């Protein structure tokens, strides 16, 4: 069992290393490369052309063998230095520290809400399997999941923000509201996050509901549920202790993976709502070819996803003791 944890940790570290190496390689694969970016930046600053040439020349002489650059890249990353954003003229780490909590807040809230709805709704459908309620709900779930979250987001902004003016169309708080632990701030933050959260919840709840329905139906057919019925246990007890628990188990990993997945989706979502989280900055970086910021945010999102899957795997044994580590034997 210990072996499993060591292996799992090794895999998480390996993934992060591969991603870091990938970003290192990509930055160098970009046409133009960092030196061209530096030149463009100096031109924009209005530096004398001959001086620019001199600076570029001096940098070129400084260029070291690739493994030295790689070593320096790795060591600066490990010390938390992600470089400086070309576009915002700020250290990348400062931008991320400012923006990340907001994105995490929106996505974790959305994922929790959608799973809560999916579990209850899916279980209800499973109990009434074959009824009109089942057909209608399953149809609705499929219909909802055929809408991409950003399409609903656009509709929300157009209808609720611009046409009726009920919800704010941009930013994470109203101007002048400072982040502090006050009722006004929390209310304002929730008010601004409501539409992004709603568009994620509504479009993603359908497939999770169908998954919960399938799990519940499967568990309802198990022998131990029949035995529990024969023992005369109350329906409520069977529903929560016997069916609910076992049906939710397979969704646990999906829950944490979906949070990580949604962090990636935040790039599109936050652009629509002009919600200045990491997704929004990622979008700005992509459009302005701001490579340090782009790679920094990419690394942060990857780390978040790797960590959430890692936690899911490590804790799965705690909530489901039956789990066995699947060692494959050398056979053929």
């Amino acid at each position, binding site marked *: 069992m210990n072996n499993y944890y060591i292996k799992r940790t090794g895999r998480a570290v390996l993934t992060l290393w591969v991603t870091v190496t*990938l970003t290192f390689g*990509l930055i160098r694969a970009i046409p133009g490369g960092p030196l061209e970016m530096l030149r463009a930046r100096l031109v924009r600053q209005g530096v004398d052309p001959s001086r620019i040439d001199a600076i570029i020349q001096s940098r070129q002489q400084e260029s070291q063998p690739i493994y030295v650059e790689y070593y320096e890249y790795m060591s600066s990353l490990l010390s938390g230095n992600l470089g400086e954003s070309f576009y915002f003229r700020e250290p990348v780490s400062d931008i991320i520290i400012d923006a990340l909590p907001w994105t995490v807040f929106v996505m974790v809230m959305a994922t929790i809400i959608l799973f809560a709805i999916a579990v209850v709704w899916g279980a209800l459908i499973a109990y009434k399997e074959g009824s009109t309620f089942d057909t209608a709900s399953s149809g609705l779930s499929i219909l909802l999941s055929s809408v*991409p979250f950003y*399409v609903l987001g656009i509709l929300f902004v*157009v209808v609720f923000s611009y046409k009726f003016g009920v919800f704010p169309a941009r930013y994470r708080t109203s101007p002048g509201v400072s982040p502090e632990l006050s009722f006004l701030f929390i209310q304002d933050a929730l008010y601004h996050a409501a539409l992004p959260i709603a568009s994620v919840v509504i479009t993603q709840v359908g497939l999770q509901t169908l998954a919960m329905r399938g799990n519940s139906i499967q568990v309802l057919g198990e022998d131990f549920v029949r035995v529990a019925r024969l023992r005369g246990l109350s329906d409520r007890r069977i529903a929560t202790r016997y069916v609910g628990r076992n049906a939710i188990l397979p969704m646990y990993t999906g829950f944490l993976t979906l949070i990580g997945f949604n962090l990636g989706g935040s790039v599109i979502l936050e652009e629509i709502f002009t919600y200045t989280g990491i997704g929004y900055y990622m979008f700005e970086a992509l459009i302005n070819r701001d490579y340090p910021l782009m790679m920094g*945010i990419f690394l942060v999102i990857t780390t978040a996803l790797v960590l959430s899957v890692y936690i899911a795997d490590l804790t799965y044994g705690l909530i489901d003791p039956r789990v066995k580590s*699947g060692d494959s034997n050398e056979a053929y």
Partner: protein
Amino acid sequence: MGSSIPGSNRVIPMKHTESDTGSEREFSFGAAQSEVEVTTADRLREFYREFIYKPGLVAWEDRRTRIGAIIMGVYVFIGTIGAWLYREPSTNQSPRSLRPFETLEAPLGTTGSGQDVLAMVIHATPEMLIMILSGGIFATGLAVLIGTVAGYKGGTTDRVLTTFSDVMMSIPGLPLIMVLAVVVSPERAAVIGILITINYWAGLARSIRSQVLAIREHSYVEASRTMNVSTPRILLKDIIPNMMPYVLVNFANAARYVVFASVGLYYLGILPTSVANWGIQLDNAYSQAGALSGGGTMYQLVVPMIAIMFLALGLILLAQGMDRVFNPRVRTRLAGESGSETDDEDTAAPTEVMT
């Protein structure tokens, strides 16, 4: 799954003889064994019955598959014949800012620069279909290859391939695609499809691997192995056919992912705008056409949205309906071979749902 053995037993012996006679060259006793000649035509007919007719019949019985197939048929029609018949979009081809249903010339209205909205939607379809196809084939093909080899070979091969797909799976899809799209800036629809599924295959490869782990223990696979049939042949003849329905379901899921991701990328303006796409239309309508100032230009947003939604709906319905093909009992009963009255409850849970 354990209860499905009676159904699959019926299928196994036929496949066994198939691989048996197919490898005659390798066995001296092969010729003596097959007294009944199996011609290529027979084998083709067998293949058609087992893998096209019967699954097709079962899938067609399901309302969801039927609707999904019809929707997909409509899109293929629009993407091929429709795009060929209907005029291409260009600026000032009609009066500017026409509302929908005003003239027959531009039935769904025009944009602020006089482009026919319907023409834009129609001419984005072929590229989208190519993207779906290339992305789906790439994702499922690679997943089948890596999943079956890893699951069947076991040992070091398995460990290396599984670690590889685990690592790929842990890298978040959308940001990776976006970064790659900026660096590579692909122009061709087929390349974009592959780019979008660059790490989508990994999760599928994992679940195929675990299915292969179960299939490889079946006696008919063991028989093939004892007869010294080569590994690629066993994978191709004995293992992969058993997973075709599952692979098809996931093909539809991958295709939907390609639709969502590509439209999203085009909307953000990350991909080169040389190719017509519904995402570009959304972006134009949202930012330029004044869709925000009032309801007057909502149709420019709604038309591409409907195109995206129906395509996704068709793919979901196909995937959900095809799940039923999993159940061999339903399959044989509907094909009229077995009289056993079994429950045909649709218990197949949607597997591996993401996005």
